[in-house]
């Protein structure tokens, strides 16, 4: 074996020239320098994190309390942390792209190839590694608490889902240091992403990061659905569930049915690229239209997979901060279900322009428009929830207000795009880009941020700083408006999406406005980071350990903050919808009981982390054609699974004594505390215990 052969055998296609840092040293132009700097940031960031953890001496705690934990709450938090880290990269890429297009009349400062890489990673990251983990994280934390469960049905599988999602994210981040990511956009249409047109590692990075993370999401969907079906507390009938849980149920059904088409499409594309198949090639009977159908058979339900939980959060937030029962609960349940079903009937509207007959377009156009009905009902239901309420404009409510005004614009442009006639004109233009950002940012992101601010005190025992939260929320709202409303106009003027440059001077002022908006969004993200920092610093002042800082209505607020890892000392007996609100009203909240029992909980396991590490190596090995490593990784995964089946001692028991001691200590603190009225809920006095404010008592006190 020659040394060349040995190198190829060891490193596959990976060599010095595939490192952006090396390329930046070789030819230091602006694009190469930015790519090199990005690689440096990833490396420096990794080193900084490792150094910080070492400095904190937190390695053991990180491993035992977090990475090997099977607690749904810890897993939920880790999902959210992953999403926020990835969001930072996604937003920085967005600002770079806005800057490029603001300068697009004179050609911009990035090469077209670098720009293409940016929009491909931005889309992939924002959908798969920001929106999805954020949704999965909030669901993980909140849903079991809301239905009165102690954990997910499959805690270890939950950990594996997180591991596979993290694998995808790590692969995308690795592409900054090793080689290049795809230039084929987040949808990766062949034949452009096929071997003939793009033989490099880029599309392979996309394929493996999305395929592996997608399997994790499918498993999550199964876990969420089974948990809701099987783990509800006694008395928690389906129609007593908080609306958020209904949206989670619909989302998990979508996950189960919509993720497989994506996994299949990516694996078929991989078969084309690696094994000389011809599913989507130009020749030998391949047809890219099949890919486009499969991709959007996933891609459209995906949008509702993301937005339904946001609708759930908005339902909770509006009801709580209006001090009122959710209006039209049953309507909202049926509307959610209707959207989930319809979401599978509309995928073709992503390619009205592919040349199918008018009749096909009509069917899918009308189906798409039908989604506007249940969505409209939801918005009206939330407005009716505010009607005759007592509304507090806290940070979550500011996000929700931004949602109402801006999301309706997204709905309007959605109805416009449902018309094939108009799509022939605005498809593939910035109008489309403006539309989907208009539903994803004010819809999904504002909803999730509202949820994070709402539930943060539950998860950590202290509230997030109110002032910085307001600054961040307003920056998000105005940043979005400046960044995307101008794009509607540019799109109507005919500017194609994914353009690294343009030659129509009329686009220029609107592009500058959009850049300003992007800068505001970046500031919003910075304000969010500052807010978290300030809140952690002032956590003693912001503490609300008693568990109910917002006068909440649902079961998660009936626990201390943060909740014990077994969630409920005694499983709640649910008697009502909004059970905790009802319990507080008739005095059965915070009651002691004699029936403490032993609680059995799952033990920690390293399986998720082993799978994550092996899957990451497998992904890298496949991208770089390092076959020995690929086989070794697969073997590791198989051995890890088999070894796990031999472990019989997977649970441990917490004795009833310990539980009753902890629970009674908390109850004693609740009784000793003084409840506060809602006008003081953002002050330091808010320890998490609420005064009952009913119309009768209010009248009497006046």
């Amino acid at each position, binding site marked *: 074996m020659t040394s060349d052969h040995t190198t190829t055998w060891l490193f596959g296609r990976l060599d010095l020239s595939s490192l952006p840092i090396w390329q930046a040293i070789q030819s230091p132009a602006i694009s190469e320098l930015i790519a090199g700097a990005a690689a440096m940031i990833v490396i420096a960031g990794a080193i900084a994190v490792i150094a910080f953890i070492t400095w904190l001496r937190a390695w053991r705690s990180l491993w035992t309390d977090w990475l090997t934990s099977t607690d749904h709450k810890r897993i939920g938090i880790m999902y959210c942390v992953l999403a926020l880290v990835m969001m930072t990269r996604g937003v920085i890429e967005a600002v770079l792209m806005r800057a490029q297009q603001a300068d697009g009349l004179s050609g911009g400062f990035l090469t077209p190839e670098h720009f293409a890489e940016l929009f491909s990673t931005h889309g992939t990251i924002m959908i798969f590694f920001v929106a999805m983990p954020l949704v999965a994280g909030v669901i993980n934390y909140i849903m079991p608490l809301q239905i009165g469960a102690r954990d997910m049905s499959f805690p270890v599988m939950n950990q594996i889902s997180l591991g596979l999602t993290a694998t995808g994210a790590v692969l995308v981040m690795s592409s900054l240091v090793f080689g290049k990511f795809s230039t084929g956009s987040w949808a990766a249409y062949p034949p*452009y992403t096929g071997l003939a047109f793009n033989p490099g590692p880029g599309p392979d990075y996309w394929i493996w990061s999305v395929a592996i993370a997608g399997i994790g999401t499918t498993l999550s969907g199964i876990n969420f659905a089974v948990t809701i079906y099987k783990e509800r507390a006694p008395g928690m009938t389906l129609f007593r569930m908080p609306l958020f849980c209904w949206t989670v149920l619909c989302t998990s059904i979508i996950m189960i049915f919509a993720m497989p088409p994506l996994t299949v499409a990516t694996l078929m594309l991989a078969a084309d690229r690696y094994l000389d198949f011809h599913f989507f090639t130009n020749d030998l009977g391949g047809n890219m239209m099949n890919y486009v159908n499969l991709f959007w058979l996933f891609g459209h339900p995906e949008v509702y997979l993301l937005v339904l939980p946001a609708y759930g959060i908005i339902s909770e937030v509006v009801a709580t901060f209006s001090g009122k029962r959710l209006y039209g609960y049953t309507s909202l349940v049926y509307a959610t279900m209707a959207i989930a079903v319809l979401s599978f009937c509309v995928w073709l509207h992503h390619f009205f*322009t592919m040349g199918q007959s008018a009749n096909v377009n009509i069917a899918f156009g009308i189906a798409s428009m039908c989604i506007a009905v249940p969505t409209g009902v939801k918005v009206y239901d939330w407005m009716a929830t505010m009607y005759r309420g007592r509304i507090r404009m806290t940070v979550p409510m500011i996000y929700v207000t931004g949602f109402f005004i801006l999301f309706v614009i997204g709905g309007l442009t959605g109805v416009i795009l449902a018309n094939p006639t108009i799509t*022939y004109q605005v498809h593939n233009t910035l109008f489309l880009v403006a539309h989907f950002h208009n539903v994803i940012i004010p819809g999904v992101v504002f909803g999730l941020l509202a949820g994070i601010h709402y539930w943060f005190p539950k998860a950590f025992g202290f509230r997030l700083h109110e002032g910085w939260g307001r600054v961040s929320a307003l920056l998000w709202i105005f940043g979005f408006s400046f960044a995307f409303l101008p794009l509607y106009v540019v799109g109507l003027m005919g500017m194609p999406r994914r353009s690294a440059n343009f030659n129509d001077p009329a686009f220029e002022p609107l592009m500058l406005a959009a850049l300003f908006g992007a800068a505001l969004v970046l500031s919003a993200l910075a304000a969010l980071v500052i807010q978290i920092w300030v809140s952690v610093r002032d956590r003693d002042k912001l503490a609300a350990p008693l568990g109910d800082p917002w006068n909440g209505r649902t079961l998660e607020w009936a626990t201390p903050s943060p909740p014990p890892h077994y969630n409920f000392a005694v499983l709640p007996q649910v008697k009502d919808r909004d059970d905790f609100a009802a319990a507080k009203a008739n005095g059965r909240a915070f009651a002691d009981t004699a029936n403490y029992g032993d609680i059995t909980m799952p033990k920690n396991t390293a399986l998720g982390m082993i799978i994550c590490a092996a899957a990451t190596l497998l992904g890298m090995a496949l991208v770089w054609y390092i076959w020995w490593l690929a086989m070794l990784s697969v073997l590791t995964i198989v051995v890890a699974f088999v070894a796990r089946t031999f472990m019989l001692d997977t649970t441990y028991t917490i004795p009833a004594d310990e539980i009753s001691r902890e629970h009674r200590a908390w109850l004693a603190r609740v009784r000793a505390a003084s409840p506060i009225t809602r006008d003081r809920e953002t002050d330091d006095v808010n320890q998490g215990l609420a005064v009952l404010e009913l119309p009768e008592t209010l009248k009497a006190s006046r």
Partner: protein
Amino acid sequence: MGYNKAKQFSVLLLTAVILAGCSEQRSSFLDPAGPIAAAQRAHLIEVVGWTMIAVVPVFILVPVMLWRYRYRNTKARYTPDWGYSGWLELVMWGVPFMIVAVLSTKLWFSTKALDPYKPIASDAAPLNVQVVGLDWKWLFIYPDLGIATVNQLAFPAGAPVSLNLTSDTVMQSFMVDALAGQVYAMPGMRTKLHLLADAAGVFKGENVQFSGVGFTEQKFDAVAMTPEAFSEWVARVKSDGVPLDAQTYELLGASSTGAQVYEAIGTNGMPAGVIYFNQVAPDLFKKVIGRYHGGEPVLPANQPGAAGYVWQPLFNGSSK
């Protein structure tokens, strides 16, 4: 009456916004130059108008609710347990349903009427043009006239143009905003688009489906001419053009912009960035589609636009 006025006003307003700063090359369907684009704009305005019935109440009621029922307003009624009203449900489901029913009907008829595959009814005979999308340029073949161009689509105003499209590389999307919108062009497949310009003019045409680094350069002028000017143009193409032989087609197939091709084979008789061809193999378009259906692999070396494409004859040219 009021509706018509509002409609006129909104049309004017939209057009004014769009046209501020536009060049003489018309580039948006909001400034339509033909019946299809005009109907598409009219449909857009109608959809926006109808949807406003559902949207405007939200814009008004959200601030009203937030102010009227703010926590400190102790005068407002407070009904924490109110959560259902039959009449309200009827309105909430009924109004969006009615709007969607109306819009669906309109969608049905307009989609039928404006189907890009449907020939445009006209007294004038249609002009047939075959469009081949290449990396990163458009080839227009006029099969009945025996000529072809790169990056210029000329046609007589007032007569329908019947386009057949394909791609000899990755998927592309052919768009002329001011006339008809877009349809995909895909390798091994044929799609169709019909358009008509009311009067002479120059309109922007382009590929709007990302297809690689030269994607933003894949633009062309669609030029509507008086019938006389068009005849003159055809004569000019015939006299000033070069033959589109096998070698030239191979050159077009390489990943390059129209300007680069012009540098290679353009002559003084052609406008900048545009190539005129005076001889075209009669079934070139068919061969471009057929190359992917031969049951033989099309290797990257023979695949226009592919990495590692080397020029290979697609057909036996007329001038060897």
